[in-house]
């Protein structure tokens, strides 16, 4: 077991305990930031040399896990930086227990790290459930009936959903078992090795349960009902993590099963099921964007839509797998930036209604400009990353002799962009005279921390749109190969 991998899981948990003991917000924020920096640094060192997975170990890292882990770590760092002005200046609403914020956020990071580093499917399940438990109290950060409702729905629906994923996990164990009841166990490497001998019926049933179970947590339609509530009600730095990092972790659960199906020589069935749920999510997400008047819920529904795009890319297989994974990266970074920037709007206006916010260009010029850029980036306009990933998936769909699928895909993306821009751009323009005003004077350092992290995330999205750097390209290719797709 590599010490670095152990550090990635244990450090956030220990830091959470340390933060819990100190009853000072100042100390907690330092612990939060320090952990985020060490975590990101350790993940960075994994990029330089990937430790070879030890067969039989229950934790380890591969290209796919590293991709999801890196996104979680980067977004966590951005959220931790943003949390400093967010928590010290006071927020627009009354927090229920502000001293629980940092410890829970750190536990959340530890659970997400364990999801990405698990080499055993049952352990991964336990880690996914742990992410739910660590993040649910964060959704109820503000003492509002609405956020309580969101937290309860999230807890119950996701717990019930992923209980089914556990059943699917056990089905895989049955699929590998011989007449004496001995089998490969639930280690991912063992299952991949014996994949061709797996019983196909149990394998398919396992994939269906995993897709439904982890799909609930990933926000695939029609299992997404809790998502807009949870992402809309939680504090924005948490929303950024829920949308940008946690949804990826749930997707990783599905992808582990998909990879085993692919290794078993049966990728078609699982791919088709991903395609169906992917299109359902794209359709439902886009339809819900239309006429949405709460800009945080708007961003949440956009996540449903984008999870659909990723599922479609991976469902197609072949070179679209690469496109789907690239879109995973793009969506995380852009959506993280969008949630943090929208939080700047919320803190300046005190409302999440997009109709009561006007003239952000004058009141918060820098955030407003970045928000405009981020909407373009997320909407799939060149020269940003989502454009490249969506075009990759589109070309693959056209090449496969399924032109109507490609056309429907692009048409829905177009509608989604118009819906999002239609709600967001009026917020930036116009006269802010009639709008609620809650902004207090802010220090330069705090303004920098509120604008810097989303600006850096957007800059990475821009780089990915111009040219995917070689290191990222290699990891994406490695991850696509695990899923049986070519690059």
């Amino acid at each position, binding site marked *: 077991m590599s010490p670095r991998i152990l550090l990635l899981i244990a450090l956030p948990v220990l830091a959470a305990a340390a933060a819990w003991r100190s009853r000072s917000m100042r100390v907690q924020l330092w612990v939060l930031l320090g952990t985020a920096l060490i975590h990101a640094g350790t993940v960075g060192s994994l990029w330089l040399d990937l430790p070879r997975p030890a067969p039989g170990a229950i934790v380890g890292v591969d290209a796919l896990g590293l991709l999801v882990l890196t996104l979680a770590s980067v977004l966590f760092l951005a959220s931790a930086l943003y949390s400093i002005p967010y928590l010290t200046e006071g927020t627009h609403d009354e927090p229920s227990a502000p001293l629980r914020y940092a410890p829970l956020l750190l536990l959340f990071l530890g659970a997400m790290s364990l999801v990405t580093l698990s080499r*055993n499917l*049952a*352990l991964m*399940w*336990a880690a996914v*459930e*742990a992410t*739910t*438990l660590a993040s*649910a*109290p964060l959704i*109820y950060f503000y003492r509002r*009936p*609405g956020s*309580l*409702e*969101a*937290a*309860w*729905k999230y*807890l*119950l629906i996701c*717990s*019930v959903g992923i*209980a*089914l994923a*556990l*059943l699917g996990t*056990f089905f895989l*164990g*049955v699929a*590998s*078992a*011989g*007449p*004496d*009841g*001995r*089998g*490969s*166990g*639930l280690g991912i490497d063992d299952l991949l090795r014996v994949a061709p001998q797996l*019983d196909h019926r*149990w394998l398919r*049933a396992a994939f269906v349960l995993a897709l439904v179970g982890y799909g609930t947590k990933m926000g695939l339609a029609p299992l997404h009902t809790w998502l*807009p*509530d949870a992402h*809309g*009600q939680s504090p924005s730095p948490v929303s950024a993590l829920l949308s940008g990092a946690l949804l990826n972790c749930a997707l990783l659960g599905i992808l582990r099963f998909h990879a085993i199906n692919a290794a078993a020589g049966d990728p078609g069935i699982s791919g088709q099921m991903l395609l169906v749920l992917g299109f359902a999510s794209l359709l439902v997400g886009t339809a*819900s964007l239309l006429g*949405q008047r709460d800009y945080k819920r708007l961003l949440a529904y956009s996540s449903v839509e984008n999870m659909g795009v990723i599922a479609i890319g991976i469902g197609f297989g072949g070179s679209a797998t690469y496109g789907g994974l690239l879109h995973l990266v793009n969506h995380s970074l852009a959506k993280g930036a969008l949630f943090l920037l929208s939080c700047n709007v919320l803190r300046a206006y005190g409302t999440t209604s997009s109709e009561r916010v006007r003239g952000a260009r004058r009141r918060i010029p820098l955030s407003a400009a970045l928000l405009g850029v981020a909407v373009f980036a997320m909407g799939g306009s060149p020269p940003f990353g989502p454009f490249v990933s969506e075009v990759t998936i589109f070309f693959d769909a056209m090449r496969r002799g399924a032109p109507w699928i490609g056309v429907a895909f692009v048409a829905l993306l177009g509608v989604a962009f118009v819906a999002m821009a239609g709600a967001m751009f009026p917020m930036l323009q116009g006269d802010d005279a009639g709008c609620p005003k809650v902004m207090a004077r802010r220090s330069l350092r705090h303004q920098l921390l509120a604008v810097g992290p989303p600006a850096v995330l957007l800059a990475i999205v821009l780089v990915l749109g111009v040219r995917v750097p070689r290191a990222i390209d290699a990891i994406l290719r490695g991850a696509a190969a695990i899923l049986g797709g070519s690059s």
Partner: protein
Amino acid sequence: MSAVADLLLALLILVGLYMVSTSRLHACVRASALQGILLGLLPIALRWANGIVPLDLPVVTLAAGAIAIKAIAIPRLLVRSIREAGVRREVEPMVSLHGSILGAAVLIGLAFWLGERMVLPFPVGSKLLVPAAISNVLLGFLIVVARRKAITQVVGYLALENGVFVFGLALARQQPILVELSVLLDVLVGVFVMGIAIHHISRTFDHLDTDALASLRE
């Protein structure tokens, strides 16, 4: 001796049915605790039925863990929630009790039908294992959907989770004990967090109907 294992699994289904049919919250929680005891005894009984020495360290740990968590710790948490909230029974369920019992009968039939088709490729000591597991998953789902009180919904989630746990016992020969225990621990923490949420719900809304939790919609 597979008779003992058969008996435990049959009781598990009956207790699940009882949970669907009762409206008293205390009875529901007691039934859930009873399921916890049955779950604890089951791994030992299954080993006995398979002709293996029924007791060794991992299996005793698992049995003790299941009973400690599912029959003692979780029911205590739930009873405390009921006391704090001051509710005693499920008054107006989404689906009437008669309707739920009818639904439960259909679901149990479905579970046995599925159990006929999904034959495990190896002997597990009882033919009832798969039907009992699927029955509890389906009945748990029914309780979550058909009841309004937050506590009853948690009991439903537990029944569902118990069904999954029973199925997991089929993998006793290839599953490290650590994994089963971490799943148990997750469920315990899960119910603990749900208990806190219930506490806040009863304070905020003055009752436990999750109907009140329906302001967030388009």
